[in-house]
């Protein structure tokens, strides 16, 4: 047993999601990403004297949606608070957040891994404003501040320390990511920082009740980095404990190039935020009518959709998971089912193995030239024996190229599968004539040659012969005499 196995890993995650509103959380300035610096800013975002915040109703609705999706209680009355600290990208000197009474509390998210299912409690979801962005100039004593992001609405989803491995943490994040994107509350773009994660990581001996001292890993922007950062941090902490040293409670950053976490130098009082109720904003009151309106408009969530796909279309769990990972892919699949409902399994295979391969870079599932009815027709042509699987792939490639219908391509390229026994028999006879050695070898017991014969026939027919008929005829002729 390795020394690392003596310890249990304990992880809690804090996820920040930028909400997909047009305007900021407390002002009417736009939230456009990637604009020229300091152009999406108004008096409120700048923290100018006398400018007052007014809460964005849409941001509240998005937060409620996220709360309902995670089974949270939505507080009828919640409160904003000031979190005080100095940083150049925070013009007011405080961030408006929620502290004692967040909008959503006491939810959970169940994460399915191969070998276990883990219910992770969601402690709270609170609303807050994003800060601006500072960039540090290499080798110069200055930083440049862009306040476009200041005031972009965020929800922070805080889990209890219920996760027990980096794999569980990643599974939780992926499910959460999928949910907020399904809900339409966040675009989920991790590179642009729309979905960011902080991980609180500690270790303790198995069976120990109290938690170990934790380190907070900040702002990790990919699923892979989160896994790597947690794994590194766990080993670092165990190594320290085994060496008789103490873990220091601190914030650490992850360097993906070196694969290590390192301490973020910060002064001890930096965590003294002196929260107090935000006097510039009234209490946020959500009455039951509003809550019910939001509830009624909730979309089907990934877990439910997966279960339905398995049930209704007889798909395997893995296929259902791949299709439901993104709502547009699931919608595409169901639109194709509408076109041809007789073989969902094969249709699912085509979406997963062929179509999704075409979806990368600028090409999305909504812009790929092969539309759902067209893919449905292709699968129908396979099912009815017009096309073999191999021919269908050629047709599919041509469809991606040209955006044409499957039937048009089949006709144009003469790709119809040959199922005529007379024509296939003729090819077989020719092959037998040219390869008497293989024929007698087969008959003397080397039956594995059947594959070679099938290959020859397919080659002769340029892939068009119906493989099932080829197989049947070959066996009859080789074994019959």
């Amino acid at each position, binding site marked *: 047993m390795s020394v690392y196995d003596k310890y249990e890993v304990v992880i809690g995650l804090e996820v920040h999601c930028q909400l997909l*509103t*047009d*305007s*900021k959380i407390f*002002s*009417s*300035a*736009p*939230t456009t990403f990637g604009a*020229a*610096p*300091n*152009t*999406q*800013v*108004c*008096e409120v975002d*700048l923290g100018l004297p006398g400018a007052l915040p*007014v*809460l*964005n*109703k*849409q*941001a*509240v609705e998005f937060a409620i949606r996220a709360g309902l999706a995670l089974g949270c209680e939505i507080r009828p*009355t919640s*409160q904003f608070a000031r979190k*005080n600290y*100095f*940083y*150049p990208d925070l013009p007011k000197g405080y961030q408006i957040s929620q502290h004692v009474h967040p909008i959503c509390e006491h939810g959970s998210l169940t994460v399915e891994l191969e070998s276990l299912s883990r219910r992770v409690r969601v402690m709270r979801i609170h609303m807050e404003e994003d800060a601006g962005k*500072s*960039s*540090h*100039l290499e080798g*110069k*004593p*200055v*930083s*440049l*501040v*862009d*306040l476009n992001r200041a005031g972009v609405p965020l929800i922070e989803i805080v889990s209890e320390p219920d996760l027990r491995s980096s794999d569980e943490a990643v599974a939780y994040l992926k499910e959460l990511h999928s949910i907020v994107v399904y809900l339409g509350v966040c675009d989920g773009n991790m590179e642009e920082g729309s979905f960011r994660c902080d991980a609180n990581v500690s270790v303790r001996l198995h069976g120990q009740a109290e938690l170990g001292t934790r380190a907070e890993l900040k702002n990790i922007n990919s699923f892979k980095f989160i896994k790597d950062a947690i794994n590194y941090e766990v080993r670092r902490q165990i190594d320290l404990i085994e060496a008789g040293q103490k873990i220091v409670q601190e914030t650490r*950053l992850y360097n993906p190039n070196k694969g290590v976490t*390192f301490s*973020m*130098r*910060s002064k001890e*009082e930096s965590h*003294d935020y*002196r929260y107090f*109720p935000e*006097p510039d904003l*009234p*209490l*946020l*009151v959500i009455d039951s009518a509003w809550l019910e309106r939001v509830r009624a408009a909730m979309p089907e969530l990934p877990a439910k959709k997966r279960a339905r796909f398995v049930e209704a279309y007889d798909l395997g769990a893995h296929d259902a998971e791949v299709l439901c990972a993104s709502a547009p892919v699931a919608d595409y699949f169901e639109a194709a089912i509408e076109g041809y409902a007789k073989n969902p399994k094969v249709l699912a295979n085509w979406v997963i193995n062929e179509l999704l391969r075409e979806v990368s870079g600028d090409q999305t599932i909504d812009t790929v030239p092969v539309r759902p009815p067209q893919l449905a027709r292709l699968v129908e042509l396979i099912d009815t024996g017009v096309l073999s699987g191999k021919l269908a792939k050629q047709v599919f490639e041509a469809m991606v190229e040209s955006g044409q219908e499957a039937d048009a391509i089949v006709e144009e390229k003469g790709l119809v599968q040959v199922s005529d026994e007379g024509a296939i028999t003729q090819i077989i006879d020719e092959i037998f004539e040219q390869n008497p050695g293989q024929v007698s070898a087969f008959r003397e017991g080397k039956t594995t040659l059947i594959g070679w014969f099938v290959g020859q026939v397919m080659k002769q027919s340029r892939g068009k012969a119906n493989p099932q008929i080829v197989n049947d005829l070959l066996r009859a002729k080789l074994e019959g005499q």
Partner: protein
Amino acid sequence: MEISREQVLHIARLARLRLGEDEVAGFQKDLNSILGYVDKLRELDTTGVEPTTHAVPIDGVLREDVADQRLSPDAILGNAPQKQEGYFRVPKVVED
């Protein structure tokens, strides 16, 4: 509750204030007198009373999500002591 000299210095540091020696003593006295007043209020029994966060009881003040307000870049950077290529330029903030 008594505010110590160390607490005054701590609060000053958090507020980025540099206090002279006489000011520290002065603030310690002032803060203690304010907290003494709060202590007086604590003599009242507030069992079952909701904490007041706002003097004016209003709620339901929300905006529609319309992005129709922003300042011109000149106005935005107008009060900046230093600027560069559309950015606010500040002394380097080191985090790494």
